[in-house]
């Protein structure tokens, strides 16, 4: 069992330590939880570690994510188990002041021990390592997945997210003319009031209201990550991530020679795992492109659900394509039939004297509602007025 340090004051103290340990590992727990946890242990066979674990898990875990992490955290604290940094003298936990970016040291690739050391100045008993019983098991995996994460460093991600948010708003902010029933609204819904008044002998007691509903446009982004686009992939992926984060209904796909849906991966709350999943999906990242084939695949499969009369399709690509231009034109025509607008964001268009002479691009032109330049985040942000017109 756990070696209790001499300063531990008994079970209440240990429980406070455990709650603090969970808090450090990302579970949102308040001070009241410690007392609740002790009460819960009173309701079960607290001497049975299995039962105690189940009880504490039911009590302290708020969501599915925590549910998966809990057993490791429990083992790490109560049994000095789990992949913990070799804790030699003490597994005692101090309640440390807020250090929200807990995983940061591992993510940045710096030595986690240093970071842990900072928090225990003057401790001197060598307990700095693993004092907080944090798990470090994920580190090696994270390093392997660095490649794509570097494409999405925090600054550019934030800037791209901002640009995406503005764009999304410019498109989405389209109100309907028609009024529909609403909880709060400027106008009275006379029809409903009259209907409801029948139940009250003709007295209009309940007042119902109506308002113009938001009719948001959905965004479907198709991002080219082939060899010729490698330079821009960083910006575009961050931009697409921004679109997805802002708009719960947005949908995103990657394509090179194949088409892959990445919405679920981008929506992952754990941005690290999101990057990991993306790297797996972007296999063949940097290879050739078959835009026509990929768009046809989209039209064949996802389009039925993804597209409707309120959808803006954004294609992020340079238009250099190994497939037949005819296939590209055909695919765009099919998409255009189902979507409200098709916009092509082209990084090359930012160049002076660029003309869409590439066979693929010139075949695509007739089906585009807009063909806009986008090679940096600034350029993307500058598109807002154009998008508002769509």
């Amino acid at each position, binding site marked *: 069992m756990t070696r209790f340090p001499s300063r531990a004051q008994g079970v209440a103290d240990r429980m406070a330590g455990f709650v603090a340990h969970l808090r450090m590992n990302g579970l*949102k727990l*308040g001070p009241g939880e410690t007392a*609740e946890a002790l*009460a*819960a242990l009173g*309701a*079960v*066979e607290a001497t049975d570690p*299995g*039962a105690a674990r*189940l*009880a504490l*898990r*039911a*009590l302290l*875990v*708020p*969501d*599915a994510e*925590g*549910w998966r992490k809990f057993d490791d955290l429990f083992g790490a604290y109560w049994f000095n188990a789990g992949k913990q940094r070799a804790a030699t003298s003490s597994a005692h936990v101090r309640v440390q002041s807020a250090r929200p970016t807990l995983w940061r040291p591992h993510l940045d690739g710096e030595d986690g021990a240093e970071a842990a050391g900072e928090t225990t100045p003057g401790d001197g008993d060598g307990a700095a390592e693993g004092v907080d019983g944090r798990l470090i098991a994920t580190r090696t995996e994270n390093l392997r997945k660095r490649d794509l994460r570097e494409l999405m460093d925090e600054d550019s991600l934030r800037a791209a997210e901002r640009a995406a948010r503005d764009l999304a708003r410019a498109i989405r902010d389209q109100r309907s003319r028609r009024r529909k029933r609403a*909880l709060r609204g400027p106008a009275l819904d006379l029809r409903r009031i009259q209907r409801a008044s029948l*139940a*009250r*002998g003709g007295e209009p007691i309940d007042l119902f209201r109506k308002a113009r509903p938001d009719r948001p446009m959905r965004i479907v982004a198709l991002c080219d990550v082939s060899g010729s686009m490698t330079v821009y992939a960083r910006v575009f992926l961050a931009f697409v991530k921004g679109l997805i984060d802002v708009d719960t209904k947005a949908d995103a796909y990657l394509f090179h020679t194949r088409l892959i849906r990445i919405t679920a991966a981008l929506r992952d709350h754990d941005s690290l795992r999101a990057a990991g999943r993306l790297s797996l999906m972007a296999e063949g990242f940097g290879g050739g492109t078959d835009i026509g084939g990929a768009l046809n695949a989209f039209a064949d499969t996802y389009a039925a659900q993804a597209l409707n009369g309120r959808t803006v399709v954004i294609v992020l690509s340079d238009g250099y394509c190994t497939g037949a231009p005819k296939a590209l034109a055909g695919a765009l025509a099919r998409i255009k039939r189902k979507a409200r607008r098709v916009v092509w964001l082209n990084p090359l268009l930012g160049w002076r004297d660029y003309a869409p002479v590439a066979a693929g691009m010139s075949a695509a032109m007739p089906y585009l509602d807009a063909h806009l330049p986008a090679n940096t985040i600034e350029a993307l942000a500058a598109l807002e007025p154009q998008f508002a017109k769509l």
Partner: protein
Amino acid sequence: MSHLALRERLARVGYVADESLAMALHLALALGRPLLLEGPAGVGKTEIAKALAEVQETRLIRLQCYEGLDTSHAIYEWNYQRQLLAIRAEGASEEALFSDKYLLKRPLLEAISQDVAPVLLIDEIDRADEEFEAYLLEILSEFQISIPELGTVKAKARPVVVLTANGTRDLSDALRRRCLYSYVDYPDRETELAILRKRAPGLEPQLAAQIVGVVQGLRREDLEKKPGIAEMLDWAAALAGLGINDLADDRGAVQATLVCLLKTAADRDAAPVEVMDRIIGKVA
């Protein structure tokens, strides 16, 4: 009563719970806190509440949430028609009009005005609006409802509250904090076999093992909607009804009965004969 005893009793009414779920239920009873159940569709989240009510020998009161659910459907409403009739017929006074006689109790009010603590199932809470969730928080902590015309109704006995969620939207942290939590996942092979034996005792053991094996295999495939326990039971009933004793025997009929398990066109295409042959080959 320990959580293992509770598990026993749940098993007796036909619900096979794993240990962590039994513990969550046990704590919900012992601490009087609501229990939030999350997990994929079709793993028996709703069934838990039914089984719990049966174990506790009490009523199950169910509130099915949906978008736009409002107080008049969740808490109470006055029976206006009867009130009007009373006015017309006997010129009822105001006190008489706003009395219990004309109060239509909806699930939440119903649950807190019971003499014996019922099990209150709030199903698919994530479908309701955030406003309703906030209101629910108040009820779950105070267990009282105030009706302007009548006064405050306090719970005579605290109901056992079970909430289920499917992940339609994120629930607020406040609600999560107030609840005990249990994640209900697809059962493992032994548990599922136990469930099937409980629900369909007449089934051949060999066929039961095959059914569970195939369903577990299908869940590992890349499907849009993975078959849940209810689907598995349906399928077992269908196979039993057709008199099939071995999945490998009549492949055509088995393929036809897959409609019980696979509920979208894409999933049906994802499990063609070859894939099913492979899965069935493994378990046969």
